[in-house]
């Protein structure tokens, strides 16, 4: 762990850790401002996965030979690293395919078997589809109802109205920790307490927080926390569900198959201990090793330093974009209340055209609805452009973005 006295990050130096950031795009320096979609991968992660396949590859939990034991050790070691990162007991750490699957695990293992007509699942208007659609599917099966806590014009949750929506019928409150569109950092500890006061579970989508700031699940008090490897310097194909172990003990499995059983007869099966009860089939072993290396990389830098840097980057993006006349910037204007994913709209310039033009200048931004269509409706737009920074992003990236946006305006304005 690091302390507040740690020196600021030097993004230009960190870029050397990320091979892809050395390449060019259309003859220009690659300015990667889409880390909220997926982060780039440091050499340490690439090396760990490569070494795993070259030196250790075997299936886990089964073989009696040394290689299988080493593979199991690496795989379970990654679980320890992920658990320590977010301060959660290892038996409550389930590896999934991604954060979406983590939410679906909760929806199927708990929701489908538990919810009844009249029960309510409360999510928010700023959720990613991954924390909306699984609940709509469950509601369709069970007769439960999905409700949406409102977002204020300033892009924050309306906590008082949200509190009023949580009642005896509420069985689960699902909330995104940091919005992938607005950047808003939500007070999830407070929301978890609100949920618990009415006997509801609290599920936190920490996809955009775990990569960017210290997250302590015990301190948040959340029952269920989902995040994904590929947005935190790790590979695709691995996500994490952190669940209160007692919940996992009480649930039936989500997926059935190999690995997750204790005994199988032709009549019935019994389940493995948690967390393996929820990890059917051969797991993403190399991906877990890569995730473990990513955790090591981030902890080597210090997530408090990453957060301090991204606070600066959020400010730089807000300042730089504000120079463009008529721009609409979504989400909080106070960098203390937001992450470094900044969505914006320019009048008479469609986000898709912005992203296409910026691409030619070597600048990667996202355009679209960001898998948050309910929020797009609240904001009154079909789509936004979004620039999102990470630990390797610097003020030079913001300058390149703003300069390219000025040229885009001239180009399309005619």
């Amino acid at each position, binding site marked *: 762990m690091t302390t507040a006295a740690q020196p600021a990050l030097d993004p230009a130096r960190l870029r050397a850790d990320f091979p892809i950031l050395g390449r060019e795009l259309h003859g220009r320096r690659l300015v990667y401002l889409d880390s909220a979609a997926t982060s780039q991968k440091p050499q340490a992660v690439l090396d760990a996965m490569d070494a795993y396949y070259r030196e250790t590859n075997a299936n886990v939990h089964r073989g009696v030979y040394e290689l299988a034991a080493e593979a199991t050790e690496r795989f379970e070691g990654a679980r320890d690293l992920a658990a320590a990162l977010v301060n959660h007991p290892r038996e409550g750490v389930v590896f999934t395919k991604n954060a979406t699957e983590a939410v679906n695990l909760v929806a199927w293992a708990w929701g489908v078997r538990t919810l009844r007509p009249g029960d309510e699942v409360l999510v928010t208007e700023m959720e990613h589809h991954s924390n909306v659609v699984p609940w709509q599917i469950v509601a369709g099966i069970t007769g439960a109802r999905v409700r949406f806590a409102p977002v204020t014009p300033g892009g924050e949750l309306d906590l008082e109205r949200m509190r009023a929506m949580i009642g005896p019928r509420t069985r689960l409150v699902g909330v995104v920790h940091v919005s992938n569109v607005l950047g808003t950092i939500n007070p999830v500890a407070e929301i978890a307490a609100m949920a618990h006061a009415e006997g509801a579970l609290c599920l936190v989508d920490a996809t955009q927080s775990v990569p960017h700031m210290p997250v302590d699940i015990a301190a948040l008090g959340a029952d269920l926390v989902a995040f994904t490897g590929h947005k935190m310097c790790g590979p695709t194909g691995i996500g994490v569900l952190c669940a209160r172990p007692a919940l996992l003990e009480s649930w039936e499995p989500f997926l059935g198959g190999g690995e997750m059983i204790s005994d199988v007869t032709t009549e019935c099966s019994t389940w493995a201990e948690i967390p393996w009860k929820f990890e059917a089939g051969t797991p993403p072993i190399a991906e877990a090793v890569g995730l473990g290396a990513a955790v090591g990389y981030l902890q080597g830098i210090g997530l408090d330093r990453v957060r301090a840097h991204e606070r600066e980057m959020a400010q730089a993006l807000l300042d730089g974009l504000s120079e463009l006349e008529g721009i609409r910037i979504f989400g909080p204007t106070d960098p203390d209340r937001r992450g470094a994913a900044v969505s914006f709209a320019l009048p008479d310039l*469609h*986000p898709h055209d912005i992203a*296409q033009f910026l691409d030619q200048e070597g600048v990667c931004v996202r355009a679209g609805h960001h898998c948050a269509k309910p929020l797009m409706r609240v904001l009154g737009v*079909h*789509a936004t452009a979004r620039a999102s920074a990470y630990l390797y992003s610097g003020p030079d990236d913001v300058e390149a973005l703003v300069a390219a946006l000025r040229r885009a305006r001239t180009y399309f304005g005619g």
Partner: protein
Amino acid sequence: MPGLDDLYQQLILDHYRNRRNQGSLPDPTVQVRHHNPLCGDDLTLELLIEDGRVVEVRHDGDGCSISQAAASMMSEAVAGRTLPEALELVEHFRLVMHGDEEPDEDRLGDAIALEGVARYPVRVKCALLSWMALKDAIQTHSGERTEPVPTGE
């Protein structure tokens, strides 16, 4: 920036800035609404059909320059055509967008400027949005379709 100018030809930017046949008809024969889930483009298309011909076309909605210019160009290219001719033109344009047919300038008119979009697979759906809406509108009118279909391929 040659690559970009290839995509955004002057004719496209001109149709984007000055859209032809934008708006709505007082008494359309058929109206359809299509959207592109990828980028959120949203288009309402209205046709006035008389004696088996597309007499008037109006389009309205929100979208990127490619989808807006394509709607504008399409509206000019199909006005006055018989319904079978219009459907043939839709199919021709679709094949051009997929690189499977050489564009026929006589029939496409300004829409030939969209030829370069074929090299940007992500944007092909933007160019096709209004054309697929046209196909849907004609088929809806002809009773060949009873439910709206999703845009694109």
